[in-house]
């Protein structure tokens, strides 16, 4: 009997040690390594090319705050323009987000076909802490949407079975083309070069229609957790992906989500 009790005590100790070890492993792989290794991924096309003439940098003059701010603003404008110029080469609809002007637009070959006001936005600390010059390089090429999730379908298909005769056609119920107008509009896009864009409607979701919102949030969480487990099981640290959250009115959010093609280009201008 005393031997069994001793064994139990040891089992308890080992279990505790394993639990503590797992927690430490989790923190190291998901927080410590990702945040200490994080780097803004500058596109290869930019590095070494003459969009920004590094070789010309001839450090001579100390500057004050006003010059510093002006330089940052100009670099940011230049990066946004460069990015939109690249997008003009594409025939499909692209997205231009200017957090500086709080505006979001759909553009095709340089023509703005829709624009809306950004109600609010939130930017990840990782972006805020990065040097403006590096950010300008990062943003001087458009991003491409890799994956997307949403609370509304991209194409709101209504299924209708063909009637057998004219009587059945007469008796067929009319499908409501506006049936998803009350659905909450939330969507997010995983962009290349490590950026996560999250869009939310400014209006509170209607009480009876939060099922889709819950499903969307669940899908986001599941994908995130799956990725974490995938990395943890392979002893590889997860990657930290900075995020930008944009709040739009519901109508604008729906228009933008449905208009964008699956692999759309996205140009972003950060606030000063």
């Amino acid at each position, binding site marked *: 009997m005393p031997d069994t009790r001793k064994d139990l005590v040891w089992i308890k100790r080992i279990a505790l040690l394993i639990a503590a070890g797992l927690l430490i492993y989790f923190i190291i792989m998901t927080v410590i390594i990702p945040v200490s290794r*994080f780097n803004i991924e500058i596109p290869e096309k930019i590095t070494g090319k003459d969009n920004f003439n590094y070789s010309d940098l001839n450090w001579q003059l100390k500057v004050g705050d006003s010059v510093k701010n002006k330089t940052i603003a100009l670099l940011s404008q230049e990066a946004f323009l460069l990015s939109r110029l690249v997008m003009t080469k594409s025939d499909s609809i692209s997205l231009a987000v200017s957090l500086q002007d709080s505006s979001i637009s759909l553009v095709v070959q340089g023509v703005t076909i829709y624009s809306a006001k950004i109600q609010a936005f939130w930017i990840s600390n990782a972006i805020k802490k990065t040097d403006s010059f*590096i950010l300008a390089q990062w943003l001087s090429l458009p991003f491409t949407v890799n994956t997307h999730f949403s609370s509304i379908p991209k194409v709101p298909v209504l299924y209708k079975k063909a009637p057998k005769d004219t009587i059945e056609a007469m008796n067929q119920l009319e499908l409501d083309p506006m049936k998803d107008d009350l659905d909450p509009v939330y969507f997010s896009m995983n962009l290349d070069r490590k950026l996560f864009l999250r869009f939310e409607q400014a209006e509170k979701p209607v009480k009876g229609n939060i099922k889709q919102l819950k499903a969307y949030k669940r899908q986001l969480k599941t994908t995130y957790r799956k990725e974490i487990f995938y990395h943890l099981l392979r002893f590889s640290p997860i990657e930290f992906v900075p995020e930008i959250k944009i709040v739009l009115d519901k109508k604008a959010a729906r228009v933008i989500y449905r208009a964008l093609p699956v692999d759309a280009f996205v140009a972003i201008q950060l606030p000063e």
Partner: protein
Amino acid sequence: METLSEFKLWYLNLLKFLNKEKETENVEKIGESKSFLIRILVYVSVPVLFYLLWIVMFSSLPFMQETFIKINQSPNYPTLAFDTNPIPSDFLFNVEKRLKKLNNIYSKFSNRLPFLIVNTSDNTFTLFNNGKLVREGICSTGSFVLLDAGGEKKWMFETPKGMMHIQGKTESPVWRKPDWAFIEEGLPVPKHANSYERYESGVLGDYALSIGNGYLIHGTLYKRLLGMPVTHGCVRMDDANLEQVFRTLRVGSKVYIF
């Protein structure tokens, strides 16, 4: 009598003894059951607590990452470290020069020619000419109905998105009804593509502008449905709007649909 009273005493003592025994037994039993309950509570609560801890860890992960984020830029990328390094004298000038050039290039993309924008989510349109808005209003676009006639016969009534061009303009157009128009009404489909039953005049309004693949911008008899997604993929407008669109756009003009 004595033996009887002695027996009574003995019996009473025995009862007392037995009761005490029972009491001690009960106490032991209660003690055992208490420790059993505690053990069960511990065995259940520890995994539950552990599970909750993991949930907390997972949900607080973005917050923790955001709080402890560090930026270690690669030394390969030069930075504008204003506080430590001086800035080149011609740097600002060069950026301004480049920006001006880029703005000039980008402004060439702005369309001065007439073009039409159709918003299929809101069912609205805007007509531009010479860079200025000349007309806006409501229209009707694709209903997103998937008509299933069995087998491979399926039609999706969706207005195509992207950049189109006006490919043709017609006055007093006549509609040549496609197969789906008959199937949707439960009517037999005429065998010949040019069968007279297929032709219907007056339903497309006074004008029609083709944007390719059989899609048209045309008028409608069902004006109360304007502003709703009810068409089979074409863009419907009311008579006045359609006339202005017809007069403004030329063959080759761009139509942006999103």
